[in-house]
C-alpha cells in the first residue's frame, strides 16, 4: 500500500510559517505531520489522503523540555525517546516516562512525538492517557496567532478527536508541578509486549504532609474511546494513604462505572480484570513514588 497523491509538501521552520500555509489552504486539505508514526499508517492505507503535508520536523522551538519553576513544559515535537530519558520528568511525572518508554518500539520512540500522539488521540494510545492522568495542558496557537490553552479534560474528545481545530498548531504540553508530594505511574497490558494497550492506566496522586491523598487523577485507555478519566475511582482515593483496601475499592469502582468493549484483543470482562490488576499496581506505584 502506497500513499495516494500528495500535491504539496512543506517543511516550514517557524510556527508563523505553519499558520501561513494552513491559511492558504481550504479547511481539511492540509495535514500537520509530527513524528508521523500513526499518521503514516493512515496515509499508506489511504484512509488519509492529505492534499498538503506540513512537516513540523524543523520547528526547533517545539523540541525542548523546559523545566520551569512552577511548570514543566514539553515541546510538541519532543520525541518519546527523549521523554523516556528526561530527568526533568523524574520527580512528579514519572507516569509519562513510564508511558513513553513503552510506546511501540525503539524505532517508533525515536521518531514519534508527544504532540503527535496527543493530537492523534488514537483509541488505544499510552501518551494521551498519561497526559490526561497528569493533568497536562495543551498550548495551541490558532490561525490568528493567538494562544489557547486547553486542559486535558477538555482536550481529548474521543478516538481521533480532540479540541484542537485543524487550523491550530500544538506547540507544547505543560504540567503544573504540585506543591506537595506527588507521584505518578502508568502501565499497560497488551498480548505482545509494548503493543497498543488492550488496557492502559495512568494514575497521579498528591499527598498532604500526613501522607494522605488530597487529589487523585486516573486515566484509562484501550476502551475504544481514546483517553478517558476514571473519576469514579479517584474519589475513593481521597484521604487514603495508599492502603490496598482503598485502592482496590477504587479500581472496583472504575469497573462499575466504565464501559469496556469486547473485541479481538480481549473480552469486556477480561478488560475489567486488567483494570483491577494493573490499576491496583499503578496506583500503588504512584503512592509509593509520592512517599519517597
Amino acid at each position, binding site marked *: 500500500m502506497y500513499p495516494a497523491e500528495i500535491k504539496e509538501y512543506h517543511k516550514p521552520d517557524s510556527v508563523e510559517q505553519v499558520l501561513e500555509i494552513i491559511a492558504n489552504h481550504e479547511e481539511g486539505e492540509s495535514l500537520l505531520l509530527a513524528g508521523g508514526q500513526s499518521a503514516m499508517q493512515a496515509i499508506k492505507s489511504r484512509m488519509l489522503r492529505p492534499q498538503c503535508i506540513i512537516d513540523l520536523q524543523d520547528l526547533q522551538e517545539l523540541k525542548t523540555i523546559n523545566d520551569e519553576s512552577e511548570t514543566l513544559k514539553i515541546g510538541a515535537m519532543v520525541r518519546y525517546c527523549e521523554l523516556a530519558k528526561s530527568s526533568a520528568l523524574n520527580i512528579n511525572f514519572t507516569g509519562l516516562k513510564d508511558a513513553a518508554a513503552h510506546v511501540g518500539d525503539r524505532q517508533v520512540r525515536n521518531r514519534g512525538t508527544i504532540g503527535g500522539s496527543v493530537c492523534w488521540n488514537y483509541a488505544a494510545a499510552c501518551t494521551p492517557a498519561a497526559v490526561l492522568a497528569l493533568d497536562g495542558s495543551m498550548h495551541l496557537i490558532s490561525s490568528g496567532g493567538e494562544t489557547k490553552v486547553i486542559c486535558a479534560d477538555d482536550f481529548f474528545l474521543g478516538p481521533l478527536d480532540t479540541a484542537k481545530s485543524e487550523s491550530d498548531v500544538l506547540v507544547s504540553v505543560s504540567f503544573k508541578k504540585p506543591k506537595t508530594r506527588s507521584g505518578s505511574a502508568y502501565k499497560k497490558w497488551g498480548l*505482545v509486549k509494548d503493543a497498543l494497550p488492550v488496557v492502559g492506566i495512568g494514575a497521579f496522586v498528591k499527598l498532604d504532609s500526613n501522607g494522605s491523598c488530597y487529589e487523585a487523577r486516573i486515566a484509562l485507555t484501550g476502551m475504544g474511546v481514546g483517553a478517558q478519566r476514571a473519576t469514579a475511582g479517584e474519589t475513593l482515593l481521597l484521604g487514603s494513604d495508599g492502603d490496598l483496601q482503598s485502592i482496590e475499592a477504587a479500581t472496583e469502582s472504575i469497573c462499575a462505572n466504565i464501559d469496556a468493549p469486547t473485541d479481538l484483543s480481549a473480552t469486556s470482562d477480561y478488560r475489567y480484570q486488567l483494570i483491577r*490488576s494493573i490499576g491496583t499496581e499503578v496506583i500503588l506505584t504512584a503512592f509509593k513514588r509520592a512517599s519517597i
Partner: protein
Amino acid sequence: MTSTKDSSSIEWLGERLARKEDLRLVTGKGKYLADIAMPGTLHAVFVRSEYAHANIIGIDLTEAESLPGVIAIYTGENIKDRINPMPQAIVQPNLSAKYPTFWPLAVGKVTFHGEPVALIIARDKYIAEDASELVLVDYEELPVVLDPEKALTRNSTVVHEKDGTNEIFSMTFTGGENEESQNSNEAEVNAIFDSAPVVVKERFKTHRTGLTPMEPRGVLCDWNESDGLTAYITTQRPHIDRLALSDILEISAEKVRVIAPRDQGGGFGVKAPFYRENIIIAYAAKSLGKPVRWIESRYESLMNVGQERDQINDLEIAADLEGNLLALRNKGIADNGVGTTGVYWGFVMPFLGAIELPNAYKWPKAHISLKVATTNKACLTPSRAFGHFPTRFALERCIDMVAHKIGMEASELRRKNLVDALPYTSVTNEYYDSGDFLKVWDTLVEKADVPAFRKRQSEALNENRYIGIGFGCGVELSGVASDLLVPMENQPGYGAATVRLDPRGKVQVFGGDAPGGQGHETTTAQVVASEFGIDPAAVVVTTGDTGTTPFGSGSIGARAGSYFVSAVADACRELKEKITRILAYDLKIEARAEHFEFTDGEVIYIGDRSKKSSFVSIVERIIMFPINLPENEVGGLDATAFFEAAKPMICFNADCCVVEVNVETGDFKILKWITTEDVGNVINPLVVDGQMHGAIVQGISNAVFEEFVYDDQGQQLTADFENYKLATAADVPNIDIHYATTPCPHTPLGTRGIGEGRPSSVPGALTNAVCDALMPLKIEITELPLRPNSIWEKIQQSKQT
C-alpha cells in the same frame, strides 16, 4: 551407495562453522526477489475480492484503463479462454478428492475475501495501486460457508457447485484399505473403549494460524521468443512450478525456466504450493512481451497464505490403571478453506496430520478418520508441522489428561508407552526407520528433574505462586520418501545434486530444491569439504535454477539433511572413485577408492602415505589434461547423484517447559524451555540449533499470539501485523537444547533431515505446563490459542464450581 565414512570426512562435519551466506546478508547484498532488477519492468497489482462469497455481476474497467501509466488490466472473463484451468496433474495429489476448478483470476464468482479478481499492470507500483481503486466490481452477495461442521451438513450452501458437496476429502487411516476391514477394526476399537478402566474423551480445537515468512511472495517474469519464459518466483519447488507453468500456459517445457532467487526470506511451507498468481504474471509478461513483477504486500499475504492448523479433533484415549495406553480413537474435522491452491489443496495438511497423530507411542489399536470441509476462507497453506500441529496438540494434551485421571506423572506415562524398538510401523502405517526414543526421553527428563520440580512447585504454591511443568514429543518426517510423496503429492521424493569440480580444485554444487534461509550453502559446503578434504570456502552452492540444477521436488519436509546432502555425498563419492582410479593409474599402484584418504587438500594412498597428489593437481589433470588415461576412462569431473532411502526416515524430539501462571490475570510466563533432539549426525550444530530455536518459537507464537480471524460474513480481520500478532523477542524464552542422537543408518553421512515438523510438540508441552500449574484448580485446556484471557475465564469457571 556406501554408508561407511572415511576418517577425513569427520573434519568438517559437526563443526560450528559460521555461515558463508551471511557475508552478503549482513551487508545488505543479498538478492531477494524484489531486488532483482530488469530494465523496463512493469508492476502488477491485484484487485482482490472484498467479499467471501459473491457472484461477479460485472467489472467496469473504464476509469482504471484510462489512467495514464496503466498498461493492461486482466480479469477472469478475458483470460479464461486463454489459460488452462486448474487442477492440472502436475500439481494434483494422488488422493481421491473433489478438486475445484479455477483460473488465476476469479471467473463468475468469488469464493473468499482476498481472491484475485483483476490484475493491473502499470509502469509504476504507485500508479498500479491508484488504478486498482478505480476498478469497479459489481458483486451480488451469496450466503457464506464458514463453519466446517455446518458445511458438511446436507442443507449447507455449497462453495464449489459442481461437486454438490463441501466435503472435499475424507478418509479412514486405520484398519486397512477397504471399508469392511476398517469397520471391523473400528468395532474392535469400540470394544476396547467399552471395557477400558480409563477413558478420556475431549474435543480439541486449534485455531487458524500458520507461518508468515518475513519476505512475502513475489513473481518476476520475462519473455522472449527464443528463450521463452524466465520466471523468478519465491518458491521452495522451482522444478514443479516450471512443469505447472508449462502445462497451464501451454508453453513447451524447454521454453520455461524457473529461478528461485538464491536469497529467499523464509519459506516454512508457505512457498511450497503452486500459486495462481504465478500463472497470471507469467501470462501477462508473455502477452505484453515485457518483464512484469508482482511483489505481494503483507496485507495480501495475510489474507491469502500462511493459514493452517484449523482443525477440530474429537479424540479419545483408552488406558488401564497402570497407565498402559490401550486404544486411540479420533474423528477429525478440518476447515479447508476454498481449496484453490496447487499441490496441497488444503486437505493434504490434515491428511498428514491424521497419519502423524499416533506420534511416538505404542497403540495396540486405533481408529482414526478425517473429514475435510470446503469453506469461504483462504485455502489452508502448508506451514511447518503442517497438519500435525493440531493433532499432536490434541494427543499430547489428552495424554496428560489420562495421566491426571490415573494419578500418574505424565512424563512417566509417556515413557511407559514410547515405542522402544525401531524400526516400527505406526497404527496409521507410518514407518519409523531408526532412532532411540527412550534415550531422547530419558535425557530430557533427567535435565528437567521432575522430583525436584515438584518440590519447588509445592513450595511455590505455599507462596500462592502457580508454576507448572509440561512435556510433549514428536516423531517427524526426515525428508519424504517417494513411497509417501508420490501418493501424497504426485511427486518424487529422491534428493538430487550435481557436483562439479573445476580445474583449480574448486567445487560447484547444484541443487534443484530452493531453500529459504536454512543454511544449505554452508552445510552443503561442509559435506563436500569433508568428502574431498578441502576447505568449505572452496565450495559454491547454487540452488533453485531449473536451468542449471537437477530435478528436485523442492525444499520441503526436512529434505536437506536427509535427501539432498546424501545426494551430494554420493555425487562426491562417485567423483572420488574416478579421481582415485586415475590417481592409482598415475601412481602405478593397484588401489581402489577406499585405499585413499582425501585430507588437507591431498589425496593420499593409505598403504604408502608418500604416494599422493595434491587435490588440485589431480583434479586439474583429469579435467584439463585427459591424456594417458586408463583404458575406457575419459576426462572431466562432474557427477549428478540421486538419493532415495528404501523406506521413509524420521527424526525425533522432546520438549519440556516450565511456566508460571498469574492466577489473577491468567497471564503466564515461560520460565524455561528444555528440548532434546535426535537429529542423527550433525553437520553444523549452529545451524541445527538455529532450526530448533526458530521452530519452537514459531510453535509458541502460533499457540499463543497468532490467530487469523474471520467475522460472520467471512471478512478476514487480521490482515496486518498490528492485528495478526507475531511474538517479539520480548515475548519468548531462551531455549536450552540437548542432543541425544542416533546416527541414521540409511544415509551416507548418518544425518537426518530436521526442522519441518519441529513445532508440532510445542503447543501440547506448553499447554500441559499451564494446566499443570493450575492443577490445584483442576483446569484442563482443550482449545488454542492459549491466551491469558481464556485462561482467566477458565480460572473463573473453576472458582465458581
